[in-house]
């Protein structure tokens, strides 16, 4: 009998068994809760006659979307509207990331500047923007700044450019016959530039003489393309914007919703990136700069060859999470009529079809994969950078 109780208690006392039991219980709880929620959901959908499934994606949407980079009309399907919104989200995230990085690097360096005034200005910028909610900043750029812009009739005009409450208008190039030739020349000159850079590198290796390859290739691209234009007799016509009854029509337009979201996202995230850049640069030991200087490297090369590569290793991980944040924050565009994923899918589509589960699920899936791909890319990049170290 005593043996019996002994094995009994020792079964429960065994560390491995305890872990097993605990995990089994946890798993059971998770499964049960999941099942409970799911069965409730099914029952609720059933009794209320809510349609389910993704067949709505093939039905005509019937609503317009302000910004669509692929062909889209009201007669297209919800699926296509979804694609339009997806592209809008991608575009704003990508542009935001680029712009935020540029702003962040400039502001981060400015805060480190030995010009007192510049450093202070950068500090004020950083500390102001990062401590104010992004949504508020979006509202500010959309509602407050928009209100201060002139009416289309009184547009601010720079040549063929117009700025007013309806957006920023610019000429829209329309390519005519012969522009294929120009395009080919352009592409060729890029290839040429590539070879110039390679040749310059090889020459520098061999003779040590430095050739300003980047400037040269830049010049080549511009020059060759211009030449091609001249030769073909400028096969481009511009669709110029012009004032019409209500609006400026024609041309290309950046609508205020887009501009406001882009400015807000990039300046806000830029203020965080600035701090990351600053911390990264400060993390590089001053001795590295001194050693580089005492080797005779000028300050520019010291920064480029010694400080930046080392700072990048420190910068990249937190930078990744800022990029992730920016991509997620692009969803706030919904609040100011930028037709991104949340606005189009969780807003209009959900409303017209009533299928909350499917639409919200779709959105979460997209953001999940967006986050995942950014972090995968950054991890890969990070690994490559840190491989260099050891």
């Amino acid at each position, binding site marked *: 009998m005593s043996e019996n109780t002994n094995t009994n208690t020792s079964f429960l006392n065994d560390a491995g068994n305890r872990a097993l039991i605990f995990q089994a219980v946890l798993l059971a709880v998770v499964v049960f809760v999941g099942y409970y929620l799911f069965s409730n959901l099914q029952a609720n959908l059933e009794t209320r006659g809510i349609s389910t499934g993704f067949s709505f994606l093939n039905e005509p949407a019937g609503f317009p979307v302000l910004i669509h980079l692929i062909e889209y009309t009201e007669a297209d399907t919800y699926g296509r509207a979804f694609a339009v919104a997806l592209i809008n989200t991608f575009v704003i995230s990508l542009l935001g990331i680029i712009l935020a990085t540029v702003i962040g690097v400039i502001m981060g360096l400015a805060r480190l500047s030995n010009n007192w005034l510049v450093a202070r200005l950068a500090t004020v910028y950083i500390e102001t923007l990062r401590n104010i909610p992004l949504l508020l900043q979006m509202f500010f750029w959309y509602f407050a700044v928009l209100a201060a812009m002139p009416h289309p009739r009184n547009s601010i005009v720079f040549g063929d450019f117009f700025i007013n409450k309806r957006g920023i208008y610019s000429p829209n190039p329309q390519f005519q016959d012969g522009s294929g030739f120009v395009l080919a020349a352009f592409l060729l000159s890029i290839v040429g530039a590539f070879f110039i850079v390679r040749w310059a590198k090889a020459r520098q290796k061999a003779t040590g003489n430095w050739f300003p390859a980047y400037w040269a290739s830049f010049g080549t691209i511009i020059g060759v393309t211009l030449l091609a234009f001249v030769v073909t007799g400028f096969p481009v016509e511009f669709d110029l914007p012009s004032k019409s009854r209500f609006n400026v029509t024609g041309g290309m337009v950046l609508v205020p919703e887009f501009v406001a979201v882009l400015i807000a996202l990039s300046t806000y995230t830029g203020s965080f990136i600035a701090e990351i850049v600053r911390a990264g640069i400060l993390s590089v030991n001053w001795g590295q700069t001194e*050693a580089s200087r005492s080797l*005779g490297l000028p300050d520019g*090369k010291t920064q480029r060859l010694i400080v930046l590569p080392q700072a990048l290793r420190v910068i990249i991980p937190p930078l990744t999470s800022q990029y992730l944040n920016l991509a997620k924050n692009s969803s706030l565009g919904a609040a100011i009529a930028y037709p991104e994923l949340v606005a189009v899918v969780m807003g209009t589509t959900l409303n017209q079809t009533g299928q909350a589960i499917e639409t919200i699920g779709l959105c979460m899936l997209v953001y999940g994969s967006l986050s995942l791909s950014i972090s995968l890319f950054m991890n890969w990049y990070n690994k490559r950078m840190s491989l260099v170290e050891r």
Partner: protein
Amino acid sequence: MTDNNMALAQLEPGEEAIIEFSDVNKWYGDFHVLKNINFSIRKGERIVVCGPSGSGKSTMTRCINRLEEHQKGSILVDGIEMNDNLKNIEAIRKDVGMVFQHFNLFPHLTILENLTLAPIWVRKMPKKEAEEMAMHYLERVKIANQAGKYPGQLSGGQQQRVAIARGLCMKPRIMLFDEPTSALDPEMIKEVLDVMVQLADEGMTMVCVTHEMGFAKTVADRVVFMDAGEIVEANTPHEFFENPQHDRTQLFLSQILNH
């Protein structure tokens, strides 16, 4: 400073000076760190600088390649005046190699890349040539087999030898050492000092801040003792150790040799 040492700090007329401090003064904010330094170094001379901590040894050395600015007086290196002129500074830095206490190798570059960086970018040397030269110096400091590794993979002594080789790769006419062995373990100190002795034997002009008195006795042409921003005494090692003129020097030597 007595006239006696003064004579040793200044050169005889007609002698060729490669580094010349005249009335050099430097302040950090309000703190007067170098006071009226007058001192000349002959070509090929090996100078050891010693003195208590905070006496301005590093500062003086770093003025030679303008890692620090002085505010008064003039410093001539190889006939070039040290001033705000970027061209001058660049020219001088090409001629002066420096080795730091904490090595300051570039951790993201291999040993070979550490060595070829400046020859390629500053001297515009073809890569191949630079690498050959680098390997030559690495052999001289006896770590040619480590060329492909990264600094983090080497021991302190090896790293410091790489740092010396890196300095040499610019073919400088002057080498500055700022306490090159003080961050090293005892076994490694020897490795590094051996390399430095060898360099000295080749007739390189050297200015070396160190407390390795054995090294000073073996290789120095003159030993300079600093305190409170001044050169207190400058003399041949024999005179300096056997017959220090100043009570301050005596005190310092008694402390350092007992240790």
